[in-house]
């Protein structure tokens, strides 16, 4: 059994994958075609792993958690930003085109340079936040309040989908601004004035054109566009409290 066969169930069909290929030193990029068996629960990541194991071991792609928590398997599938691990191949048509994320330099094949993404974040980005889930629950002795990881999984989908980032590499982009807004919502020791100074820049919160493509692309319900609007609200009014953005 292979990852793709395994989830095929009874109705396996063959799909044509067109996969973006580039190795350092190549004169240019190309699409390689692969015929892949796909069943009703085969994900795009399963299919790419099947290609790696059975057709071309040199295909490079990023993956880690397989459940939309690590954010490594971001890619463009038929022109849309998705996490391959939670995107079913079956509904995508007979030809499925897989490309690396846009607006981030490609290292090889489907692998982009995530350093380009992290460079844009404010220094103090948080990884853990107060948990707002199950508000009626009282934590046990010794724990002041339940906490959980931030929703942002640093996948880069919003940056890839952003039409402004496509035209301006200097724009810090939606993920970084959303992280800044989260720090204002819940500073956890970070100085809000520093975050506001960082965001109050022509290439910061003011560069966004409010296309909301980032919110559309986000696989983790962060709602970056709404957070950028909330940041602007603070900057424009001078009121130093940021509007809270709740998951949709």
């Amino acid at each position, binding site marked *: 059994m292979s990852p793709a066969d395994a989830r095929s169930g009874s109705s396996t069909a063959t799909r044509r994958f067109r996969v973006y290929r580039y190795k350092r030193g190549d004169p240019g990029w190309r699409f390689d075609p692969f015929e892949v068996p796909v069943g009703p629960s085969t994900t795009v990541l399963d299919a790419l792993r099947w290609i790696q194991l059975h057709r071309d071991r*040199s295909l490079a792609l990023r993956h880690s958690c397989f459940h939309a928590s690590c954010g490594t398997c971001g890619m463009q599938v038929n022109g849309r930003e998705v996490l391959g691990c939670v995107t079913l191949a079956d509904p995508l048509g007979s030809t499925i085109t897989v490309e690396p994320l846009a607006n981030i330099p490609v290292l090889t094949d489907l692998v982009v340079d995530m350093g380009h993404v992290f460079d844009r974040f404010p220094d103090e980005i948080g990884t853990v936040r107060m948990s707002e889930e199950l508000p009626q629950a009282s934590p046990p002795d010794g*724990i002041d309040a339940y906490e*959980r990881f931030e*929703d942002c999984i640093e996948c880069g989908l919003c940056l890839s989908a952003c039409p402004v980032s496509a035209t301006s590499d200097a724009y810090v982009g939606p993920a970084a601004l959303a992280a800044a807004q989260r720090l204002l919502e819940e500073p956890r020791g970070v100085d809000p004035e520093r975050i506001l100074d960082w965001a109050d820049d022509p290439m910061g919160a003011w560069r966004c054109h409010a296309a909301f493509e980032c919110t559309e692309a986000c696989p983790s319900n962060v709602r970056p566009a709404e957070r950028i609007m909330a940041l602007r609200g603070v900057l424009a009014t001078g009121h130093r409290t940021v509007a809270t953005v709740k998951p949709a």
Partner: protein
Amino acid sequence: MTRSAPRASRDAPHVLIVGGGGTGGALAHDLTLRGIRITLVERGEFTSGTTGRHHGLLHSGARYAVNDRESAIECIEENAILRAICPGSFEENDGLFVALTDEDMEYYDDLVEGCKACGIPIEELAPQEALRMEPLLNPELKAAIRVPDATMDAMRMPLRFFATAKHGGATLYNFMEVLDVVVDGGAVTGATVRDHVTGSVGDIHADLVVNATGPWSEKIARMAGVDVPISPSPGVMLALRGRLCNMVINRMHRSGDGDIVVPQRALSVVGTSSWTVEDPDELDVPEDHVTRMRVEGAKLIPAVAQAGFRAAWSAARPLIGSKDAEAGRELSRTFKTIDHAGEGVEGLVTITGGKATTLRGMAELCGDVICRKLGIDRPCSTRSVTTLPHTAFYAETERRLA
């Protein structure tokens, strides 16, 4: 922050670590701090094998306290160390062991006694106290025991070890696959690799090669003509939308299918099943296992039955022991360092077994073996070195083979 780690001198011994999971990353960190030159190669992205796919539990050790006390003690010791050296990488909400049936209650005294014997701090809770902490628990619960479990980020916590090693001078290559080991005069002296970034093939020479490839360790060992007793033992996990608990919820009975719900971000992860396979690359996700996760998980938290599906996947544990152990559950969760000199092959050490919670401790013991072999007298210092944040991993331009 520990950017001041001493850089290995140019004439320091060179160790090649094969495998970029948690074990390889922690070992790169350990040996870099001991002044050894490190090159690490991983065929895919770092943590893409077993490490990144686990359910994200920082074990208190309570799960093993009745039947596998060696593993339980390793877990509680490493649990405390990791919280100290990886601040911000855990949802520190503790965990509960929940008894639902009279049969579960027969396990209660053994669990209390086992935890006490292993040094795992516990708090015995009446049903209404547990329900106050976790309102969505099965209201029929008979008792609960609080333990110091936590949720970890299965990728970002280990990535801190990679980040710290890298900033300490280690050379880490992802997308670099070992094609064969280089053998010279009966000793392993390096590996032939293909760089999937450039497409080029070359040799990396080293004074010692460490096989840290988890469930793949038998494949690497075979290249050198030696054997590793490993059983790739997959388990299925199910991620559901919505955070149905804040603490880690365990079933109070012997380890079984679907006996844990780990909250993580805005998801709830139900795990896990267990079987053994020959090839850790060929993992399926049996539908009946996914259904079992849903059914068993709903016994702990009834809302599991209706929660929206997010993902189901498999990960292969690297359990030590023969493949004859059918279910994988009877194999110990502890780890092992094998010096293959004992089988007549110098220059190759395998580190395998263990689990994410014990990655640092595994690296310490393996590092001790390696230092003895290389004649280096420098103790492990990873217990007290705070690791860099995961974001530091991306903060430097990557290097490739020339």
